[in-house]
């Protein structure tokens, strides 16, 4: 490793290194960011959820949208896999079904950027023991 020659040099190195810690930094305050859960159970993986997740991670990074992308288990909508749940800051989560790479692009452009609803929303019509 070459020596750090000045404060400006140090700042530059910090900028370069920061992306490696981003994942950890962001997850300490996910409620302020776009949160996406990708259903990655057997049904999801078989329908291509892994590709969708990779696409979301890469694209959100490229389009400079700060987001925390995690995987979750089966949400019970196996017929509509891959499914993702998107939570915009201070809003209720919205679940989308049949999400392929193309749909993911539309969700980023319309829903995440502008809050416009797009086709493929699965309405939440159940309750859990936590909401009672």
């Amino acid at each position, binding site marked *: 490793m070459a020596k750090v*020659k000045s404060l400006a040099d140090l700042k530059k190195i910090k900028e370069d290194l920061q992306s*490696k810690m981003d994942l950890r930094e962001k997850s300490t305050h996910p409620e302020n960011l776009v949160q996406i859960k990708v259903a990655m159970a057997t049904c999801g993986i078989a329908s291509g959820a892994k590709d969708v997740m990779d696409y979301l*991670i890469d694209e959100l990074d490229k389009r400079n949208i700060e987001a925390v992308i995690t995987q979750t*288990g089966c949400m019970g909508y196996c017929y509509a896999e891959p499914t993702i749940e998107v939570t915009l800051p201070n809003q209720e989560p919205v679940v989308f079904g049949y999400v392929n790479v193309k749909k993911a692009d539309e969700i980023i452009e319309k829903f995440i950027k502008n809050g416009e609803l797009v086709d493929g929303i699965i309405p939440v019509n159940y309750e859990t023991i936590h909401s009672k």
Partner: protein
Amino acid sequence: MAKYKMHLLVCGGTGCRASASEEIVKNLKTIINDKGLADEVQVIMTGCFGFCEKGPIVKVMPDNTFYTEVKPEDAREIVEEHVVKGRKVTRLLYTDPENKEHISDSKHMGFYKKQIRIALRNCGFINPENIDEYIAREGYQALGKCLSEMTPDQVIAEIKNSGLRGRGGAGFPTGLKWEITRKSKADQKYVVCNADEGDPGAFMDRSVLEGDPHSVIEAMAIAGYCIEADKGLVYIRAEYPLAIERLKIAIKQAREYGLLGNDILGTGFNFDIELRYGAGAFVCGEETALIHSMEGHRGEPTLKPPFPSVSGYLGKPTNVNNVENLCQCPSNY
């Protein structure tokens, strides 16, 4: 280049290591490799999370899942269930002692809820053996700013303003101590870090040195700039082998980066650090006894004045600060 989707943080503090956390790291890495996930999941050994009673701790990012009392054989279940399928391993989650519910995110645990971490800001978050992670979290920026943009008097004024006081017990104002040592005229001065944590059951200095050693190095260099010393000494108990090892690694890395040594950051300031080992005498935590011990004499306190700030190590002005005290200095700038 690997684009990690998930970071697994495993506690590498003395407490968790004693309960086999190194083996957990080894098992996690092996299983992740076997499954071909090495490019997606990074396993990192961090410093202490502070929740040693329920150690070893494994934390999964980005979903902030906090696993407690993990055994090496649990590694497979964590990878197969959580990493691959996204299902949390419920039996390893923390159970709230009052309502018996599982809590997966440490932020909601009673123990962490009210914490604001300053001294421990990096503990359990970065890999203490990797200077890059420290730099990524603003590390050495304070030193750079002090050396490049501030005079020693301004730096001292800032510390005085912060109200920071000694954490060794006496609570002496840190800024005042730096100022007195600065005003003492001598051809050689010293910065000493007191890491002789002798109180039974007290491990705050150990936690900092094991989890964030660079914060202490950076602060010692700042102190050196203020009092015009080019030499720092850490008096550390020999009973802290892991803290010593991490500190040595950190010093080596800082030297390689030119953050210790001659002409730091091109400012002409020179500073380097050496270690001195204590043999575990409670009294050597007292600064005059500590200095006598470093000189090779019996570790007995002597009456003050003269204060070490005027006549300390080898009769030269010496600024003695405690670990916990020092590690808070960089966050002031």
